[in-house]
């Protein structure tokens, strides 16, 4: 077993995480690491438990068992499984997007991005009291927040629509805005739940560019769930494959792509082929054992 890059400096370490809903085991003893500065993709067929993993990482669910360890660049560590969701995003700096976009649709694009900077602005406004009375450096801070919002609007090429309500945007733009909003929280790890779903090929290419930009310019690590294999293969540095809540493969895109278990589980095969692959697998595991 060779040590991969993500083993040396992981931003997120998932250890033996299990999530049960009543009798259903959605995630079963999952262990993987996401490297700092990597784009890590979590893939698997429908119902494999990918979104559940996301919800455990971001605190919307508490895992039944297991540990989730987040390490900042400065060495601070956070035990995510013990933190409430808003602290995971606020303190541990894990941002996320949602499978079915959750924008503040009645607020403008600019407002969406300002809300994302809530915690910083809250402190600057002296917990509102200073802001109301007009003392303290709130004005300057708000200006700064506007600049940051503008920076991200430029990045997602929606500056011209800054004062329009988010609900008015076309689908693809809403996805980009959701990513920009998550980035405005200044995250260490950005979790994207199917960012390419419903995008046309051009939008999909733009998205790849945006994500690579986030990795390289912002130095933010990314964890993404994706069905679109072209996106996964093109941009990810590391792929983890889930099936029925269990990890079946973990490695570089090239490695995973050629893993027979992944081919069988994920890409789908005829029944006879499954048998063939299973036989091969038996042989393989037999050899390994």
């Amino acid at each position, binding site marked *: 077993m060779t040590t991969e890059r993500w083993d040396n400096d992981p931003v997120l370490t998932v250890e033996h995480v299990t999530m049960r809903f009543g009798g259903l085991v959605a995630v079963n003893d999952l262990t993987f690491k996401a490297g700092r500065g990597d784009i890590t993709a979590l893939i698997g067929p429908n119902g494999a438990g990918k979104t559940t993993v996301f919800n455990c990482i971001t605190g919307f669910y508490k895992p039944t068992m297991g540990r989730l360890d987040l390490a900042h660049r400065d060495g601070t560590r956070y035990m995510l499984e013990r933190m409430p969701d808003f602290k995971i*995003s606020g303190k541990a700096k894990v941002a996320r997007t949602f499978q079915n976009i959750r924008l503040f649709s*009645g607020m403008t694009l600019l*407002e969406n991005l300002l*809300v994302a900077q809530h915690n910083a602005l809250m402190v600057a406004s002296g917990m*509102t009291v200073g802001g109301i009375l007009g003392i303290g450096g709130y004005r300057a801070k708000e200006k700064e927040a506007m600049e940051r919002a503008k920076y991200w609007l430029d990045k997602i090429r929606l500056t011209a629509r*800054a*004062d329009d309500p988010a609900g008015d945007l076309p689908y693809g733009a809403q996805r980009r805005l959701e990513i920009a909003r998550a980035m405005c929280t200044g995250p260490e790890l950005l979790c994207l739940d199917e960012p390419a779903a419903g995008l046309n090929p051009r939008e999909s290419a733009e998205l790849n560019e945006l994500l690579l930009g986030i990795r390289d310019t912002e130095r933010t690590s990314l964890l993404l769930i994706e069905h679109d294999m072209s996106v996964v293969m093109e941009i990810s540095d590391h792929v983890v494959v889930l099936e029925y809540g269990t990890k079946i493969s973990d490695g570089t895109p090239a490695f995973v792509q050629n893993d027979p278990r992944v081919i069988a589980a994920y890409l789908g095969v005829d029944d006879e082929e499954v048998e063939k692959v299973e036989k091969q697998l038996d042989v393989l595991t037999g050899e390994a054992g």
Partner: protein
Amino acid sequence: MTDTAHATSRPGPDYAKAAKDALLAGIIALGIFGPLVGLKTEQNMSNELIVRNDMASALIIVAIVMAGRFLLSAFVFPRMGARGKKPTVANAIDEGVKPDRTKLYARLGLLLLFLYPIIVVSLLGFQGSLKWVDNFGIQILIYVMLGWGLNIVVGLAGLLDLGYVAFYAVGAYSYALLAINFDLSFWVLLPVAGILAAMWGVILGFPVLRLRGDYLAIVTLAFGEIIRLVLINFRELTNGSAGISSIPKVTLFGIPFDASPDGFAKMFDLPLSSAYYKIFLYYLILLLALLTAYVTIRLRRMPIGRAWEALREDEVACRSLGINTTNTKLTAFAIGAMFAGFAGSFFAARQGFVSPESFVFMESAVIVAIVVLGGMGSMIGVAVAAAAMIGGTELLRELTFLKAVFGPEFNPDQYRMLLFGLAMVGIMIWRPRGFVSARQPTAFLFERKAVSGSLVKEGHG
């Protein structure tokens, strides 16, 4: 295409269908109003309950229902159908109001509010103005203030609070009890009442804020009722249903409004009149209401205000952005409650008397109705709704000429709440999002554009 074709080749009114509809409506109306209006239960001389036949009144109502239904079926509905799926009138108005126009209206309205007592006094004299300043001016402004206070909770944070009147009661009783027992002045007790109400907001808010949807509404209703029932039953402190009387009046920086030598009238050598005190109270509540408005407008542009609105739009997304939703909701609850506390202490000082009767659920319902009818989140809408609903129903008291029509027994006052309820239903059907549904953004890069009400969410609570 078929729509337009249909619209242009629209045949004349279908009278046969309309007649059928009217007949059906008549039968239903007869079933409902026949017994409830036509058969009156009354007590006779020997205190027995008897039924008096008043079928004539019932038949008049049935006839009105039938005529109304006929007109609707024959003329109104076909026309509405022909207008089709085009953007509704409501939408057109949304887009039509430019922000700068709104600002102009707001300024004009403000000017009118400040001049109102002067206008009334110059038209009707001091004595004649009493009713108009007190029953209309002060009464409406109390509800405007309550509406604006609740607007923070319902309109901005999207938390439906059906027990808001409890905080009004806390403010009123705080002032009444502390003023009587500790002889403190209104100006000291005003902030105290606000703080106490805010504290109760936090105490009651804390357990209920994880509830969703209508459940939050019902629990706040329950809390409102509990506070009222405690006020009734905790006789040692509150004197029960009898209430607390002779609550001290407000003074103008120590100058009392009474007939004493250092009273207001004597001091300025004016003839004695209760109108000065009323006018003073009018300006006091106007300033309190404007304080509410000012704080709300400032808060909306603060991070906390944006977080409230974001909470109304999507709570899950808020949590994913690191916003502590519990604290955010609690601040909304507390600040809303604080303004109710201010209004409550004003109310106690104005009436000189408080009793649990003033804080029934119906009051909460009226305030919520004002906020929703005005358009959630819109300050001007809420003010207009308060003026229309409270002023409109107060006006009914004035319709004494109707006695000439319906006979001396007729008392327009008793129809007040009936019409209020009907107006609530009617306005909801006419404009489900209230008078002003467009939302003004709190920040902009290039230009401030109103957000159409159809995109703004109403919150889950």
